[in-house]
């Protein structure tokens, strides 16, 4: 008798647990308002990344096309896998002294691991994170970017 009672109890418990699971999925079936998918290419106009989103490394230029990179190369030293190459040259400045000036700040987007050490250790805060994330290209050489824009110069900070 006991075994029959257990048998029936098993069946009823099983049905109850199965119905419990079905209620959860059934609840989501009748509420299409819970859909969480972002309709990506269509919502590009309103899509805004967070402030600190690490899309790529950029060198911010202000309205006069000036950046803050002195070409010191500290970012290049700190980069763990050599994604940054800083090319400089020495030209005489206004006072006639030879000064190091940035010619090209080469950044390999295809090797960067986004560790953030270059942004953190830059003494002049010249680098920052960009918000673009659509980097797919057909040609790998397009991923080697030059961060300083053509014709830009160093913004001289007045020492107070």
């Amino acid at each position: 008798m006991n075994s029959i009672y257990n048998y029936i109890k098993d069946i009823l418990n099983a049905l109850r647990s199965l119905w419990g699971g079905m209620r959860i999925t059934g609840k989501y079936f009748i509420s299409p308002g819970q859909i969480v998918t972002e309709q990506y290419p269509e919502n590009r106009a309103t899509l805004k990344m967070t402030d600190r989103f690490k899309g790529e490394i950029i060198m911010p230029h202000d309205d006069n096309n000036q950046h803050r990179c002195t070409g010191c190369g500290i970012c290049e030293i700190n980069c763990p896998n050599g994604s940054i190459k800083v090319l400089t040259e020495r030209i005489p400045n206004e006072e006639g002294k030879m000064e190091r000036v940035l010619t090209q700040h080469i950044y390999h987007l295809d090797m960067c691991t986004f560790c953030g050490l270059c942004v953190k250790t830059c003494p002049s805060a010249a680098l920052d994170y960009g918000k673009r994330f659509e980097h797919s290209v057909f040609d790998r050489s397009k991923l080697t970017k030059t961060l300083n824009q053509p014709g830009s110069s160093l913004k001289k900070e007045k020492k107070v």
Partner: protein
Amino acid sequence: MSKMYDFSQLTGAIDAYLRANMSPGWAVFTELVIIGLVALLLYALVGLFLVYLERKVCAIIQNRYGPNRVGPFGLFQTVADLIKLLMKELIPIARADKFLFNLAPFIVIIVSFMTLAAMPFALGLQAIDLNIGVLYVLAVSSLGVVGILLAGWSSNSKYSLIGAIRSGAQIVSYELSVGLSLLTVIIFAGSMQLSEIVASQADGWWLFKGHIPAFAAFLIFLIASTAEINRGPFDLAEAESELTAGFHTEYSGIKFAFFFLAEFMNMFIVAALGVTVFLGGWMPFHVGNWEGFNQIMDFIPPLVWFTLKTFFVIYLIMWFKWTFPRLRIDQLLTLEWKYLMPLCLINLVIVAFLVMMGWHF
């Protein structure tokens, strides 16, 4: 009831027209061709729609959209998939039994066609109305096992063989429960002819008239038929996440499309069978003496009733699949032989007793 359109008027008119214009032999042949074409069309359309429906239902349960780019609301997604499958390379298998390998998908498709023929879609809209209708449907659907076993064996791959043998064992076991649960309603209705069973539900569906035993039988039928069609929590044979895809691993292109389509059409057929036997077929939903309500319900044509009910049962089957984890093969067989079969037999005895005493509605 008298307002219900009898399709036998339409079929009788076509028959008379054909016989008037050609010899009886040719008339019959033309009718067969017409039925064949209609069935093909139905098969193709319903199959395509069901694939789309499954993806949409699955998606909404999972809080996402499902196909919504190909065509409005993604309706042409299945068409795109079909074109893709048609364009795929049919990979020939080395040392496989070529004749059996090519035969297997056809067996599976032909079997589901044959069962489709016996379903009553509306009053008079039935291709074959045998007086052993239920037995015919059960017998023909058993032939599907042959197709699966042939597919697994002729693929010459150990994964396919394991999957096919498991699937064969599963289908053969669960046929018993399907048959026994249908037997309860046959006892209630007193006939195996499908149109008779539907007609006997004119004053109420057997699910309600047969109260508890009929409800238990319906539940067992749902579970057993989900296992029959290799779906839902019983899809160990094909959705094995470590043994690739079971018996249809080695099939590609249109042959795979056959297996795939046959699975969805089997779902439709099993749902149609359940609806015919338990849920009143094409009978509208009447409640007792509510005349006004009944008259409103009568306005909806029987074909629409049949479709709605079938899709409701199909939705139940899909709901099972997307909620539950899979059963292991020995748990599957335990469920059938130790739980469903004894319950079916007990149910049968109870129903026989009920009918004898007249204790049903």
